[in-house]
């Protein structure tokens, strides 16, 4: 059995010509790439395997990959609204979401502002809900960065291959740095309010402090012994010997953990506890 040929296109959304690809068939899984990245550089290693067992939809954000920039700053709220609008325009009103780094933050925002759109959510790489997540030395390093520092990188090469205006690379990097500088995140109550099963995945040498991710896991109902209370609907994965960047290369681990999580039965709706 072979995969169907991918369908690609652009949807006009909030002033963007927003690019998407659809691979495979079955329950929809929306994949949201990382900052400075696009479909192939974020998901090249895992997309084919996932597309055997479900319909994979990759969406490219403002100024990224095939989607040209427009004159407005980056914001997670906007990227979430753009993504929701594209999906609804293409007849998808409920899907699983897998976001890598920036894509994970967009998926989190979707669960908060478009909850009916999200069946299950996976946030992989750089998992964070506020600035406390990041190692301080790393933050200092980001502040020192200049757009030219990423010339010749894998992300720049991928951009050059697909962007409508490859000469805009420095502008993309600069806009992304602005976005990161302004990142505030979400209050703990907003994370607690997320009702959909959520899996958080980081490398053990990722850009975020593992303690922050464990805190977030607790806000999502995790951090209990499963032999007493049952396995909670939300999950936490820490991949050994894995950095922020190498996480998306761990294809075997990612595909098996994702498949297991996404295909697990949905939890029964329970009454909220009164104690």
């Amino acid at each position, binding site marked *: 059995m072979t995969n169907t040929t991918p369908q690609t296109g652009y949807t006009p959304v909030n002033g963007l010509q927003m690019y998407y690809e659809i691979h495979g068939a079955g329950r929809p899984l929306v994949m949201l790439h990382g900052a400075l990245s696009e479909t192939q550089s974020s998901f090249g290693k895992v997309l084919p395997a996932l597309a055997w067992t479900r319909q994979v939809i990759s969406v490219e954000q403002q100024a990224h990959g095939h989607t040209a920039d427009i004159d407005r700053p980056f914001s997670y709220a906007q990227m979430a609204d753009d993504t929701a609008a594209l999906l609804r325009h293409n007849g998808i009103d409920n899907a699983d979401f897998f976001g890598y780094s920036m894509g994970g933050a967009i998926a989190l925002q979707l669960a908060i502002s478009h909850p009916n759109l999200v069946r299950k959510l996976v946030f992989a790489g750089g998992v964070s809900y506020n600035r406390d997540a990041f190692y301080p030395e790393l933050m200092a390093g980001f502040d020192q960065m200049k757009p030219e520092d990423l010339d010749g990188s894998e992300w720049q090469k991928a951009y050059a291959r697909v962007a409508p205006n490859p000469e805009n690379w420095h502008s993309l990097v600069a806009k992304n740095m602005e976005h990161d500088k302004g990142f505030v995140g979400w209050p703990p109550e907003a994370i607690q309010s997320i009702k959909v099963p959520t899996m958080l995945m980081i*490398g053990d*040498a990722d850009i975020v402090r593992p303690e922050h991710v*464990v805190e977030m896991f607790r806000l999502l109902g995790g951090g209990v012994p499963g032999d007493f209370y049952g396995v909670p609907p939300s999950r936490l994965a820490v991949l050994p010997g894995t950095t922020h960047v190498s996480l998306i290369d761990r294809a075997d681990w990612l595909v098996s953990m994702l498949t297991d999580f996404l295909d697990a039965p949905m939890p029964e709706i329970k009454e909220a506890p009164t104690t």
Partner: protein
Amino acid sequence: MTVDKDQRGNYAPVNGLNMYYEIHGTGKPLLLLHGGFGSTGMFGEVLPLLAEGRQVIGVDLQAHGRTADVDRPLRFESMGDDLAALIEYLGLGKADLMGYSLGGGASLQATIRHHEVVRRLVVVSTPFRHDGWYPENAQEMKQMGPASVEFMKQTPLYENYAAIAPRPEDFPRFVTKMGDLIGRDYDWTEGVSAMKTPTLIVVGDADAVQPSHALEFYELLGGGKAAASWDGSGMPSSRLAILPGTTHYDIFQSPLLAASVIPFLDASMPDGK
């Protein structure tokens, strides 16, 4: 849990024990240590997966499985000494150690007390301090004692024990001695901080070990303090794996366990001295 009636192994005279072990596969040696009340057979498919790339030596610890008890208390320190003595008896020089829960405690003590015979260490679902267990689990352990015998006899762990133990009638004494071991407070912070052996810590996200404790463990070994560079440099020699959707009672047969451990054992890195 299937009852393992096949006997493929041997016995080694170690510190007064007639210590049962079985060898699977060829290559670098890995001693594999079961959990409390268990035996080598409990690892199911994980053992043959590990044995594809190395020589797995499954060992039944004092009083467990096919290794009869002797007249001394059950202690992690003495079980660690037994493992070091077995490595020497088998002429292995150095071996990798992988232990789950009680077996993890024995492996950790073997490494703290005899690091010269350990190349790499994998600690699965094992705290380095007793309060690393969730209070619910710690409470259960502290309640283990003679009154637990009848309850324990209803479990698959007992079914396996009764099928393979040299003296199944030892069971009540076994339960009492286990209560005396697993209920004791301990704190191995000093020993762990001094360890140089490359170590992989594995816990489930719904394990009996608290995730924050697993992070503390990882930090004692140099991890979780900084991001690695883009090229992977700056990673500590120790590793942390938290397996999603996994409890204390399904981790030891989980294919994810084998998948997390094998790359660590096979990676090229400076070895423990």
